[in-house]
């Protein structure tokens, strides 16, 4: 009798404890989740004859999309794709918080649940080496598969290069397979509240020292000038990889700093070099003197909202984060937001980091030909022009759209937007070193930044970070 009671209790304890491991089922990917198992040739080679948009008529393509204004523009225009090709598109849309987890789990499972999906250039470094992404190069080069009007040369070259990689850690972008196509992008610049600048007699900063000082001045003086609770500068601060890539990495690169150095094919962390340590200290000091309260929880959303709510005097982040607050009627600050390229580096550098919403194809897709037609259409001139003019698909990836008089006319009402875009467009590129541990490295880097902000020595924290990463990227 006693033994039964004991067994029942043991069972209770065991089953209770088993529920501690929910990841086990989530990770049921199974070995061999790699892609492209069917020979070395590309499926693009199977497409022959004259190009025909109706080639895959009657097929259905499944897309995985992230909730974004660019996505809204795409979805609104899907009927024109179906009319043009006879291909139906079904899609799932997920919010950004869960989107990449969903995509990662799906791709790693080795299934072909989605034929095409949105991804960023950084994801190519993670999804490319295991073979989950279709190399789109053979498709682009095949005249039978690709329409002449698609016009590869019309893309800004740095954007096309961002999705092109040899899959070797440390190797520069722009060589190797084309694993993603540019669709919509964001450059990282400074947006500011013109009202507070006018009232306090301020000018946008031209150097990082000026930016730091400006942020402090606004935080100190703006509340007394009728801007209740306003602080100087909104930058991201949450414990996430996304904290590093916008303003921080842009200013880091403008200072001529690198995340890793590559020697003889080996990566070595460089975020603890003396100059990098000094810059990181200054960045943390700027946030302390002029940044938001509760900075360590700040994502793009809080930064953007604060600019719109007249809580932040400046925003150093994606231009789209300011754009969506600046358009008429969008926020209390709309009509009072201007754009500026941001501070130059000591040598006048305006090197800028970027985020690209790209489109990629599942290497395991069974409908690659139809998927390629969809990618061509979505990144083509016709759809992108329509999306830029009728929706909010700003920051065109195509030169023709950026020069289109109707587009320029539409953006003209935003002070400094077009000028800023044109100043940084050629200098905006991926400033990180391509390597598969990107998300680990940048998440740890964000955690280090939080610790420095909290008062720990930048030297010891960054030395610790570099030590950890040295092992991981080896």
């Amino acid at each position, binding site marked *: 009798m006693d033994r039964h009671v004991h067994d029942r209790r043991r069972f209770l*304890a*065991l089953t209770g404890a088993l529920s*501690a491991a929910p990841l086990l089922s989530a990770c049921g990917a199974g070995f061999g989740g790699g892609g492209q198992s069917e020979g070395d040739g590309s499926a693009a080679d199977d497409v022959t004859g004259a190009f025909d948009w109706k080639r895959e008529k009657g097929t259905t393509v499944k897309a995985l999309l992230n909730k974004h204004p660019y996505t809204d523009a795409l979805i609104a225009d899907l009927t024109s794709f179906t009319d043009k090709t006879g291909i139906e598109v079904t899609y799932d849309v997920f919010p950004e918080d869960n989107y990449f987890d969903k995509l990662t789990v799906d791709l790693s499972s080795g299934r072909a649940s989605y034929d095409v999906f949105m991804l960023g250039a950084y994801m190519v470094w993670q999804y490319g080496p295991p073979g989950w992404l279709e190399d789109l190069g053979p498709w682009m080069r095949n005249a039978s598969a690709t329409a002449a009007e698609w016009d590869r040369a019309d893309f800004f070259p740095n954007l096309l290069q961002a999705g092109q990689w040899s899959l070797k850690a440390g190797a520069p972008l722009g060589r190797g397979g084309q694993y993603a196509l540019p669709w919509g992008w964001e450059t990282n610049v400074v947006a500011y509240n013109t009202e507070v600048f006018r009232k306090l007699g301020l000018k946008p900063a031209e150097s990082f020292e000026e930016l730091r000082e400006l942020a402090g001045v606004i935080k100190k003086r703006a509340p007394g000038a009728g801007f209740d609770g306003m602080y100087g500068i909104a930058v991201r601060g949450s414990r996430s990889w996304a904290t590093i890539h916008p303003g921080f990495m842009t200013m880091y690169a403008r200072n001529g700093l690198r995340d890793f150095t590559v020697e003889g094919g080996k990566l070595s962390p460089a975020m603890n070099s003396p100059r990098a340590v000094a810059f990181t200290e200054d960045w943390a000091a700027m946030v302390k003197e002029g940044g938001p*309260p509760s900075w360590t*929880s700040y994502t793009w959303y809080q930064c953007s909202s604060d600019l719109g709510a007249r809580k932040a005097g400046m925003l150093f982040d994606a231009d789209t984060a300011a754009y969506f607050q600046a358009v008429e009627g969008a926020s209390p600050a709309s009509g009072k937001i201007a754009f500026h390229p941001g501070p130059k580096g000591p040598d006048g550098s305006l090197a800028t980091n970027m985020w690209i919403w790209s489109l990629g194809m599942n290497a395991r897709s069974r409908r690659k030909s139809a998927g390629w037609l969809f990618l061509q259409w979505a990144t083509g001139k016709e759809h992108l022009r329509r999306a830029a003019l009728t929706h909010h698909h700003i920051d065109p990836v195509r030169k023709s759209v950026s020069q289109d008089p109707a587009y320029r006319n539409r953006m003209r009402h935003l002070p400094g937007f077009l000028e800023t875009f044109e100043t940084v467009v050629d200098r905006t590129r991926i400033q990180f070193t391509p390597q598969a541990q990107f*998300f680990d490295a940048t998440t740890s880097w964000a955690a280090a930044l939080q610790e420095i902000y909290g008062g720990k020595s930048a030297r010891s924290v960054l030395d610790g970070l570099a030590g950890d990463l040295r092992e991981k990227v080896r």
Partner: protein
Amino acid sequence: MRRTLRPYLLVVPALLLTCGILYPFGLGLYYTLFDFSAAKPQPDLVRWENYRAVFTQDAFWNSAWVTVLYAVGAAGAETVLGVSVALLLHRSSRVGRILEKILILPLMIAPVIAAIIWKLMLQPSVGVVNHLLEPFGLGGVQWTDTPTGALLSSIAVDVWVYTPFVAILALAGLRSLPASPFEAAAVDGAGWWYTFRRLTLPMLWPYVLVAVIFRFMDSLKVFDIIYALTEGGPGDSTVVLQIRAYLEAIRFQRYSFGISYTIVLWAVVYLAATVLVRHLGRIQRKAAEVSG
């Protein structure tokens, strides 16, 4: 034939459920013996290397420490508060019945939603908490910006969500206690404190301990509240074992290594549960002796 089959058919659902639990567990355990990651979809057998790597990582010991602090803090505070609330509700029956219904409200909110609500309320500049504290000169508190503040804020959200659970269990226990020992104590002229210490508490302990077991085990496995509130920051100050496992397995795609973290967590929860359940047996026997 029917008679011989029936007992087996009756256990089929339980058997299926057990297999449903044990299969992914066994599979996960198997994966930890390999170096399976996105970068290596055709892994090599590394035997216990993942566990060695886990135990030699400073990050693991930091996460283990944070997890224990969180679990002890949350389960402890919830027990003290929950039992106190139950005692108050038990004494004033009319008010108690109304409060019981209100008390259950936090339990009806998903913990992740509660954490998001609290994140907004704790926001230093626009959050309602600092706004309410402002008249007392405490309006500038940066709740989640410091390591201690972030951990305490996370525990506070957990306490807000789960104290009613402990209170309801303790209240049910109080209402099921036999009346005769209390009547005898009243006849003998025993005071409130004496009755509480010698009768109520020993007889209530089994119920309290059940609540502690549930809350302690649950707190060791916490993910949602902390991830929604702090994402594990600032720095690594609130990276509990589950968050570390999630980051390793899903974000960084080191599957085998991430699963090793969950296996270690499973072992910790199993050990804690075994000790507490064994203790529960002893307490139950003692309570039975007191109630006579």
